[in-house]
């Protein structure tokens, strides 16, 4: 097979994890770091090789009749549930898998490189657990790569768990800090809750379809058939219904919830802002570029099934559109730079979700028409560009935090003078996310908006508004960090641009963020593997650029120079501002549910019930027996005279009985 070497892309990170994890403690920090980066470099090169061959190579069976085929490279059985229901561990290449390989390895490599500088010291002290850090990064990379090349739904689930654990370990990297500790726990449990729904979804889907394999589930004999295949999986929709929805709807909705947990959709988003307690490069890799889009990837993977299930799509659409706005609104008032970026991430992922959901513009969609599947393509395209510029933004944030030793933007201000490279890179990132041509974000976001307008005018306007909000909050952050007023030097060191290991990734990613928009995505990552004819819709594009510029302008007005305007606006609607700052009290709500309802209301009573009632009953049996025994023991008094009394009473009793017998008979 031509793609056999893809296995190395997966295997090298796994090997690096085991090697660094087991032998790392014996190695020097420098050696570990260099080995980690080199391993990742090899992986990246191989992954690029795979992706380039897949997209642009010929004669290896990947394109048939102009349609890109899914190629299963390797697919051994891993766990047989029944004769037919078998979990396999394999590698499958298709357009989105190949694209994800590129995204993951690129960002991961950048982060590996960047971490050499970032992780070498922590607030001036030598970082502990440098080896551990690289081992975990390798573990995460392995899990994420395994996820995207999965050949079946269950493999995705498995790697969903794996990335969840890597994320847990990396968020909790500074394990002595209570905040990190708490955040890692929260992230794991929230995503676990989502995974539970995912699992239920898988159970339902696999029961009715008799398979986990994407080959059966979504590809069928070839892509053109997938709709029919999807419908045949539903079987007879009349039979299996529950509360008015078919089993298929339930399964897909549950699977979406699973994805929503990883992708931080409302209301399962609460873990992501807290996850910023991890090291910043980790946030860039996991919580901005790769893992958080796993949910989007999941829905995209099962897209042919979602297409025929309008109800599930509607759920995604509503959740996505709401989350996009919700997160953007909160991002406008956050003072912690990483949290603001986190909410920005949530909002952008919601863009991708929405874009997928609007793809099924007209119900059954059996007929393929012009523009259909645009949302899918746009979503994947945005995933790609977003990964690049959001990683850039996070790495910039990391550099800034590294320089000023604080996350709060009140400790930054006016850094442009001190850190020009970082400043420009950050600006490029902001322009990209705001959707200003020709930066990457413009092209992908524009296509999302087109797809939304195709679905309905309301959705389009809504998303355009969110796009404007995006421009506003990003530039708010930018101006607050780099301008506003003069920087007050708190520490003995002046903040300055960081060493080359940290600056180089910034430059590379900045360049990618500029040019990524010109990747011909419409020919590469379409849902059926075919070509999609798109053109720039200048009305939509013009509107969105205009809105973005308005947002930027507003941010410039409010935050470029120190002025009382933001404070005035905040105090004019204090309640709203506080609510947004407190993230609309979602955390408090969860806190209430988990602590007050579950811990105090369920666990404590159950524990009490167990000790007091069940165990109490057992103890009561024992105590009862003991008391009875003590009671019986009294008879054995040792006093002969007592025995004689009883003996005579017994004799009397016998006499009475005899008498009665005589009298009666």
């Amino acid at each position, binding site marked *: 097979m031509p793609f056999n070497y893809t296995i190395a892309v997966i295997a090298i990170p796994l090997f690096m994890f085991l090697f660094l994890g087991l032998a790392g403690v014996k190695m020097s920090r420098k050696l570990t770091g260099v080995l980690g980066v080199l391993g990742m470099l090899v992986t990246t090169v191989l992954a690029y090789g795979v992706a380039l061959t897949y997209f642009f190579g010929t004669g290896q069976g990947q394109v048939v009749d102009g349609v890109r085929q899914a190629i299963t490279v390797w697919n051994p*059985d*891993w*766990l*047989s*549930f*029944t004769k037919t*229901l078998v979990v396999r561990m394999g590698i499958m290449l298709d357009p989105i898998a190949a694209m994800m390989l590129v995204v993951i390895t690129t960002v991961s490599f950048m982060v590996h490189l960047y971490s050499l500088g970032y992780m070498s010291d922590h607030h001036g002290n030598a970082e502990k657990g440098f080896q551990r850090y690289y081992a975990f990064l390798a573990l995460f990379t392995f899990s994420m790569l395994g996820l995207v090349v999965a050949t079946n739904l*269950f493999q995705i689930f*498995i*790697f969903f*768990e*794996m990335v969840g*654990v890597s994320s*847990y370990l990396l968020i*909790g990297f500074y*394990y*002595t800090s*209570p905040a990190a*500790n*708490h955040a*890692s*726990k929260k992230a*794991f*449990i929230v995503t*676990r*809750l989502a*995974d*539970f729904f995912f*699992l*239920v979804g898988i*159970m*339902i889907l*696999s*029961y009715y379809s008799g398979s986990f394999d994407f080959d059966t589930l979504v590809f069928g004999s070839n892509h053109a058939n997938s709709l029919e295949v999807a419908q045949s999986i539903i079987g007879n929709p009349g039979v299996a219904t529950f509360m008015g929805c078919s089993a298929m709807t339930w399964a897909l909705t549950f699977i979406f919830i699973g994805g929503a947990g990883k992708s931080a959709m409302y209301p399962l988003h609460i873990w992501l802002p807290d996850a910023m307690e991890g090291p910043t490069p980790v946030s860039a890799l996991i919580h901005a570029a790769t893992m958080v889009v796993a949910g989007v990837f999941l829905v995209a993977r099962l897209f042919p099934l979602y297409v025929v299930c309008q109800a599930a799509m509607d759920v995604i659409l509503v959740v996505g559109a709401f989350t996009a706005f919700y997160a953007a609104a909160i991002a406008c008032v956050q003072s912690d730079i990483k949290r603001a970026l986190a909410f920005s991430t949530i909002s952008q992922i919601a863009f991708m979700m929405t874009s997928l959901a609007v793809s099924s513009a007209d119900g059954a969609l059996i007929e393929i028409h012009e523009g259909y599947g645009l949302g899918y393509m746009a979503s994947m395209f945005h995933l790609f560009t977003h990964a690049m510029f959001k990683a850039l933004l996070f790495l910039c944030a990391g550099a800034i935090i590294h320089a000023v030793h604080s996350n709060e933007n009140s400790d930054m201000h006016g850094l442009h003078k001190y850190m020009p490279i970082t400043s420009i890179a950050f600006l490029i990132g902001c322009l990209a996310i705001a959707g200003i041509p020709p930066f990457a974000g413009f092209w992908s976001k524009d296509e999302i908006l087109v797809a939304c307008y195709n679905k309905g005018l309301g959705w389009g306007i809504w998303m355009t508004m969110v796009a404007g909000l995006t421009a506003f909050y990003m530039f708010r952050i930018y101006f607050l960090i780099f301008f506003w007023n003069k920087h007050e030097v708190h520490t003995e060191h002046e903040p300055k641009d960081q060493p080359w290991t940290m600056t180089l990734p910034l430059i590379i990613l900045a360049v990618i963020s500029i040019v990524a928009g010109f990747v011909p995505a419409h020919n590469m990552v379409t849902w059926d593997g075919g070509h999609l004819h798109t053109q720039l819709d200048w009305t939509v594009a013009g509107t969105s650029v205009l809105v973005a510029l308005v947002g930027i302008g507003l941010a410039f007005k409010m935050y470029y120079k120190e002025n009382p305007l933001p404070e005035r606006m905040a105090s004019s609607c204090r309640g709203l501002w506080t609510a947004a700052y407190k993230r609309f009290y979602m955390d408090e709500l969860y806190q209430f549910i988990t602590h007050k309802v*579950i*811990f105090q209301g*369920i*666990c*404590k009573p*159950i*524990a009490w019930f*167990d000790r007091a009632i*069940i*165990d109490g*009953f*057992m103890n009561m049996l*024992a105590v009862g027996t003991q008391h009875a025994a003590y009671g019986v023991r009294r008879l054995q008094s040792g006093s002969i005279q007592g025995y004689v009394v009883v003996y005579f009473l017994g004799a009397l009793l016998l006499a009475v009985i005899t008498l009665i017998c005589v009298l009666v008979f």
Partner: protein
Amino acid sequence: MEIFSNILIYFVIVPLVTLLGLAVCNNRGMAAIRTVATVGATVLVALAAYLVYIFLHERGMGNQAEMILQTSVMWYAPFNIKLALGVDGVSVVMILLSAFIVFAGVFASWKMNPLPKQFFMWFFLLSTGVFGFFISIDLFTMFMFYEVALIPMYLLIGVWGSGNKNYSAMKLTLMLMGGSAFLMLGIIGIYFHSTPEGIPHTMNILDIVRYDAIPHNWQMWLFPLTFVGFGVLGAMFPFHTWSPDGHASAPTAVSMLHAGVLMKLGGYGCFRVAIYLMPFAAAQLGWIFLTLTGISIVYGAFSACVQTDLKYINAYSSVSHCGMVLFAILMFNQTAMTGAVLQMLSHGLMTALFFALIGMIYGRTHTRDIREMGGMMHIMPYLGVGYVLAGLASLGLPGLSGFVAEMTIFIGSYENADVFRRTLTIIGASSIVITAVYILRVVAKLLFGAVQNEHHRELTDASWDERLSTATLILAVAAIGCFPNFFVNIISDSFVPVVNALKAFFPVVM
């Protein structure tokens, strides 16, 4: 003697010989005691590995017999009681599990004090009972070995335990004895209905199945008796309360062996005796026990969330996980039952690992209260990593054993098309979230965060024997997690006869 040509009998003989070897050791000669115990445990592991090889070889040669390596020796003719030996896939993996845990247990009690000799002697007597149970296919010998395994527990906890040990030892023994009283009634009942008119009664499981003579109305009585009898040992709600106290007081190796192997006797017995011999009643009454085990799963997990004693957390987690074993067995299909055995393996290994680690931590800090500890990862990284791994296995991380087992159970359970079983399956599956909550809570409190007690800073990391003990278990856990099909292939076919027996009374999904 014909029986000595059967490899299975050596699983009983080796621990007994070890026991005798220990008996002649000097009570103070720690080196000799350790040597004998280690040799005994190693031989057991080797035997178990060889047994797996034989089993695979036989199956590979096309031996499709339900039980292989069968031998039957008349033991007490008037009652037709035989020493009948034989193993199928389930027994083989259970024996392998037991051998591993005995091996790890020996190293976990490497520094046992006081009375090391007596400790190991009882320990090996306990192992004798466990192995004997798994190799028997005669109800009487099964029951006899079952009792042999139970009794040493009393002394092991009562003498070498900690805390409120007398109470716990008494409670554990009495409750399990109560269970075995039910069981004995059940077995006697089965015995007297085992054969049709005119054929002498038998205790041999295979014969009883072949005759299929237990009347249905009797099954309705005998099934609950046997199921509850084994269920008590399997920590089925509401007969689980011996478990938290018992585990909390037991010494490390005993906790390991008890949670790791002895509780599996319950699950094993439930399907091998209760369901296999009385399929009609199982199909009729299964729903009652299914509800109870379903409660066990969620109930144990919720209870574990608020415990503060490490061993209590683990004991309640065992209630939850062992509940899953019985739960899956009662789902009556091959996948779920295979999952049950995987769960037994997985739970056995990872609970043993947990208890080993807790014992090691307790041995250093002299407290098991998680509120008094913190930042252990910093102080004892090896034990910390081990604990995290055990925790991840417990909450079902792919690549470790728990995931494989739980997924097989859930997927298998969902194959049943009725709403009742599916609802229970989904409720049971929700335990993966609760499990995550309590595991992470412990990990966060115990290992992460700031060091709570400054004295703890001087504590040392694991010594070589502790490392060996835990590494063995971690490797075994990872082996199941990474190569589940190896185990599934051994186990899975063993359930065909059971499922066939159930087919007449229950819409079994094949």
